[in-house]
């Protein structure tokens, strides 16, 4: 938001006397460039959509960017939801559970942690905060083996918890929430509430949280997308196909098609992939407003 406003101001101030034709020419070029980029970005998605209407041999023999037959779409849909006793639905539900729990949980923990760092002064606060920041740099792949051992030792391997618990930790979310608390919830307001006799939990839950809702949505979205797309963690900690999320399940189907070469179901997998990104698209479209505003308001103070 801020960036766009700034851009508009700059444009107006540098070219206050420019007449309409010139400005239209400029926006036409801008429009063409954006359109080009838009087509470029959406082309793979378009391919995914046209591929849904093909069977496997048409995948290679027909024009990639146009539809083939609605009956194949129905066939693909049926195969997708009935193959291996309809396990795709189970994977879909699992993904929703993993990503949902991760989004809600990490949002809450990040909000609480960020609140503590923002509003309370305690010994070692800065070094602790820096230590948390440093963990952002640790790639999740490097954590797979330790997480695997940890889950194995506490007996949670091969359960929902093995995927959910690591997903609750989101150091970047905590960092972001601290910025939001710093910017969105003035300490003076907190002090005033205390003077009025509000309890600490009331200050946090009822007074504070609504003021940083943009941050909450941002963190939740980040965690949701991260958990939704996570492949490596479930691969390592889960040993039953009924616990697979969509990423792992579809990848197994794909690999089976590649490895065995028999009865390949690539077009069904493509359809499954499209269905698997629908929740992300819905999440972004419905929450994107908060998300944008949230990022910007954090950025100003940060």
């Amino acid at each position, binding site marked *: 938001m801020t960036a766009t406003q700034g851009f508009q101001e700059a444009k107006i101030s540098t070219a206050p006397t420019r007449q309409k034709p010139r400005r239209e020419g400029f926006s036409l070029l801008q429009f063409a460039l954006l359109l080009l980029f838009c087509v470029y970005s959406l082309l793979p998605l378009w391919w995914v959509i046209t591929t849904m209407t093909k*069977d*496997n*041999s*048409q*995948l*290679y*023999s027909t024009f*990639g960017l146009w539809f083939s037959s609605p009956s194949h779409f129905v066939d693909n849909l049926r195969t997708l939801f009935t193959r291996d006793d309809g396990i795709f639905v189970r994977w879909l539900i699992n993904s929703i559970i993993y990503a949902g729990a991760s989004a809600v949980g990490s949002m809450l923990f990040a909000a609480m942690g960020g609140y503590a760092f923002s509003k309370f002064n305690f010994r070692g606060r800065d070094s602790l905060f820096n230590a948390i920041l440093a963990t952002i740099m640790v790639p999740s792949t490097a954590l*797979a*083996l330790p997480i*695997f*051992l940890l889950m*194995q030792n506490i007996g949670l*391997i091969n359960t929902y918890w093995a995927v959910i618990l690591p997903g609750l930790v989101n150091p970047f979310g905590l960092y972001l929430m601290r910025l939001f608390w710093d910017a969105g919830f003035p300490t003076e307001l907190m002090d005033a509430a205390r003077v009025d006799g509000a309890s600490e939990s009331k200050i946090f839950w009822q007074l504070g949280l609504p003021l940083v809702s943009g941050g909450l949505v941002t963190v939740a979205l980040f965690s949701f997308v991260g958990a939704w797309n996570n*492949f*490596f963690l479930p*691969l*390592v900690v889960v*040993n*039953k*196909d009924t616990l697979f999320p969509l990423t792992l399940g579809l*990848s*197994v*189907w*794909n*690999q*089976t098609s*590649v*490895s*065995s*070469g*028999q*009865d*390949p179901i690539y077009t069904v997998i493509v359809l499954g992939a499209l269905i698997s990104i629908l929740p992300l698209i819905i999440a972004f479209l419905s929450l994107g407003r908060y998300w944008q505003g949230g990022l910007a308001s954090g950025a100003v103070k940060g």
Partner: protein
Amino acid sequence: MKKTALKSAALLLSLALAASTAHAADPAFPKAPSGPVTLEVWSWVPGLDKTVAAFTKQYPNIKIKILNLGGGPATYTKLQTAIKAGSGAPDVAQVEYGFLPAFADTGGLADLSKYGAGDYKKYFVPWTWGQVSPDGQAVYAIPQDTGPFAMVYRDDLLKKYNIAVPKTWADYAKAAATVKTKSGGSVKFGNFYSTFAPWFMALAWADGGQFFQRQGDGWTQTLNNASAKKVLNYWNDLIKKGQVGTLAGFSADYWNAAGAGKLATNMEAAWGPGGYAGSLGTKSAGMWRAAPLPQWTAGSSVKSGNWGGSSNVVTTQSKNPEAATLFALWLNLSSSAVTADWNNGGLFPASDAGLALPALAVTSKNPSKFFGGQNISSVYAQASRGVNVNFQWAPWFPFVNDNFSKQIDKMLKGQFTPNQALDAWQAESLAYAKQNGFTVK
């Protein structure tokens, strides 16, 4: 009433038939454990759960839990993680031959000779045992499926250009030149998979080429061996003359060319024809045939190499290694399992008796049906018996595999001669192996 009686009689008969075919040719397997045992099995064989139902019927004490991860890098990462962690690995896992040394090197694989696996060597095609027991002592796995090499070709195109099926590489080169002239270059006679090292290695393997050799604690690596040089120079020549293409395997371009009659032959493993039937569907159906791999010397017995295939390992973490060994042997030697794996997943057997199973010879079903009803399994069975026994892989093979494409790319761009490409492949892989602590010459 009569109908029911007839039906049950038929049912009995078919049951008896099933029972007799299931046990007729099977060797005597090791003793089953006395108490109840659960085995965890990681495998990407399609329909394995159904195959295993017959096992649990025969061995009610042993329960099998299957995890299918589809194969490929992710499957190996998971297995590697569990082995490194020291817990969480399955009892039995499917591993491709080329990756066996890498896993054996981690110390995570049980030596099955301790559980009597050595007694079953005689039931397998000799080269497959060479893959799982390179030194002839320790046995790291039980061979499962194989990919011996043969040539697939378009019968219609060869007839159209009036060419006999080439029996030698000299014939093949001549035919390639003829097809280029007669088709004006629109039809390629063959295809060089420039990104598949194991494909290329199989061709050198057929000529007796050796790429790795274990010697005590050290290794010898010879990626630029004489056979490799011969094979690569031969193909590079055909490529430069425009008689042979370099389409990427399993790509849309490749299937388009193959389906549209723009490609006359290719060298494919035993599991390849199933992929042709699956990916081409009705396009060019019935026009393909299979023939033995062209030979370097006329009139010699058919020699071949292998691409792909896999084995079943037992991990050192297994609490029931005897039962796990029994399962791995049963899965790859019982005629019911080998038949089911062929029918469900197109797994070309590693066992001697498996190659002669009636199911392989069925020509009314794919892949033979797609190949004009020719019994292509017999072509591939002959190929398997002609695969050189002494062929080893090395733990750093994954790097060698990736590095191949890089060097061949330079060769195709004209920056390297074939010999230079192989020398660079050898040098860079050697440097990598040394960096990773292997004693290699």
